[in-house]
């Protein structure tokens, strides 16, 4: 049997308290590892909190220096990644050197940096947030980690990003493409949008990360599966909202679960949805992290509104079986799609 063991960490990050949130991550990482999982997945902006507003500026982690180092290393070795910021996890000398540096640094900062600071504002004013990456990279030698953070680049742009770390390397960084800026959401005010839906190798399969609103655009999952993704990880910070008669779920939860089922069934993929809980200024996040199988059925689910860890197994044999029986993806006609898209774009341009 071709099994993937993974854990969903449904946590309640505290906005702006990165040290505290990192502590939460480490606790769940250890629990997932003890449960025998090979991958632990956290929600959107899990390291920083969601409605950060101006605190976006204070919460950013400068990932790009390390990413660039990795990309440079790949290029030197002729291992150009297929998809932009997707980074191969093959080891090479330069990466090893980087990792050694990171490890040395970790020995100094481990055990002291991710405790809650006792000073009044909760921030350590003397250091940047970049050490958080070092701590997580080190942990990723024990278990692969997907976590959300505010990324800043060398041009001082900020992104709502999610990283996948494994074996001390950055496997992939997804920058959220669709930034909701309506109703209670104001992401475009602070974040720059990502440019692609990358696919990366993990645990012997191909995966893609879609962040919350990304998944509401069905083109995102269409792109991901046609690039080869079999595992679609959707991390989110979705507020619970909407009362319905005779429905034991909030309207927002109902819509999410219908969407996840559609993606899983029609794209014949495993859909792993990890949503946060907790409150920010009265807005409660609904939790209910879950997994939908390629038959469109919900296999596992965590409670709504409560923290929790879910340890699960995905069976890739089952996915093969579904894809054989219902070969929608095999029959997908990309030529028609691109032809139609080009004509749509041409129509609007003319």
């Amino acid at each position, binding site marked *: 049997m071709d099994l993937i063991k993974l854990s969903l960490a449904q946590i309640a990050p505290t906005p*702006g308290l990165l040290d505290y949130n990192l502590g939460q991550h480490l606790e769940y990482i250890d629990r997932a590892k003890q449960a025998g999982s090979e991958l632990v997945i956290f929600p959107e902006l899990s390291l920083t909190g969601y409605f950060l507003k101006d605190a976006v500026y204070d919460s950013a982690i400068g990932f790009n220096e390390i990413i660039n180092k990795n990309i440079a290393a790949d290029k030197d070795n002729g291992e150009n990644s297929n998809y932009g910021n997707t980074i191969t996890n093959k080891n090479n000398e330069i990466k090893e050197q980087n990792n050694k540096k990171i490890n040395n640094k970790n020995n100094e900062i481990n055990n002291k940096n991710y405790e809650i600071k006792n000073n009044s504002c909760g921030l350590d004013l003397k250091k940047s947030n970049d050490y958080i990456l070092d701590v997580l990279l080190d942990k990723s030698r024990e278990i692969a980690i997907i976590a959300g953070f505010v990324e800043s680049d060398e041009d001082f742009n900020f992104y709502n990003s999610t990283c996948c770390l494994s074996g001390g390397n950055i496997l992939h960084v997804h920058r959220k493409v669709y930034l909701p800026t309506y109703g209670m959401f104001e992401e475009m005010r602070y974040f720059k949008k990502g440019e692609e839906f990358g696919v990366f190798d993990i645990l012997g399969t191909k995966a893609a990360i879609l962040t919350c609103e990304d998944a509401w655009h069905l083109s995102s999952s269409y792109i991901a599966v046609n690039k080869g993704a079999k595992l679609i990880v959707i991390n989110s910070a979705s507020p619970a909202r909407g*009362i319905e008669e*005779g429905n034991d779920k909030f309207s927002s939860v109902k819509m999410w679960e219908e969407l996840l089922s559609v993606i899983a069934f029609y794209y014949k993929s495993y859909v792993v949805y990890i949503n946060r809980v907790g*409150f920010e200024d009265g807005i409660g996040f609904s939790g209910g992290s879950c997994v939908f199988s390629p038959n469109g059925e919900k296999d596992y689910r965590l409670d709504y509104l*409560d923290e929790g860890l879910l340890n699960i197994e995905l069976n890739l044999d089952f996915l093969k079986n579904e894809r054989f029986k219902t070969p929608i993806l095999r029959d997908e006609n990309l030529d028609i799609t691109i032809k139609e898209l080009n004509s749509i774009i041409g129509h609007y341009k003319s």
Partner: protein
Amino acid sequence: MINQHLPEIDSINFKNIHKLLVNFIKEEVGRTGANKTVLGLSGGIDSAVSCYLAVSALGNDNVTAILMPYKASSPKSLEDAMLVVNDLNINHYTIDITDQIDSYFNKSVYNKSYYDNSNLNFENKFKENNYDLKLRIGNKMARERMSILYDYSYILNSLVLGTSNKSELLLGYGTIYGDMASALNPIGDIYKTQIYQFAKHLGVPESLINKAPSADLWQDQSDEKELGFTYSIADEIMFLLIDKMYKPEVVISMGYDAAIIEKIYNKIKKSQFKRRLPLIAKVSQRTINIDFRYLRDWV
């Protein structure tokens, strides 16, 4: 159009809403390090619902009710408030506010030197028992209660729990810096009609559910008489105007009374100031609440 009416809180969705509100209190209170709340218990349904939620969230040892009757308050209000206190077995204090309210208004009326340059005849106004004076006394009472609650908030190291529902917040049927003031409000997004439904599932005593809604600021006051429409009709209309964001003309086309819609729409607009913080004149590059933007939960 399907489902274009205010959703009822029924036995199925109740559980989820209850869990959300209990978690809200637990987490937002816990975050401040206080872990305790204090609230004004009027004997009405709104403060009762807030109180039951607070006890579910924090336990009866961590919730304190303050009962603040005025001489004109209905005795039934105090009785009903005590029903809640006893049912939940919570700490309570009863503080009669008659002295301070009467002292202020007696002084205003009889101390002519205050109003030497005024054409207002306060003495007559008081005697005539007119609406303006009733309203002023009512507002003063609401603010006196607020000031007591915040004093107890300090004494008991407890956060003041709000008890205003969505209907009265939208209609502006409350006193700014009076009953509208609180640290956090679990029921401010729930319409009055839904509060009744919610209260039944919470187990609030029948005696509180079965009486006409009243601010009880003066004898025989009635919300619905004063507003000029019932909550059941107003809530349906506000659900369409606010939650569904339909324009008034669309709501009229759905068969609702145009005059009531207009009245409600104007009340909502005119009371916007009550729902916001004071305006600050922008002078600097970065101004509080304009472009200095953080969550209140900012840490």
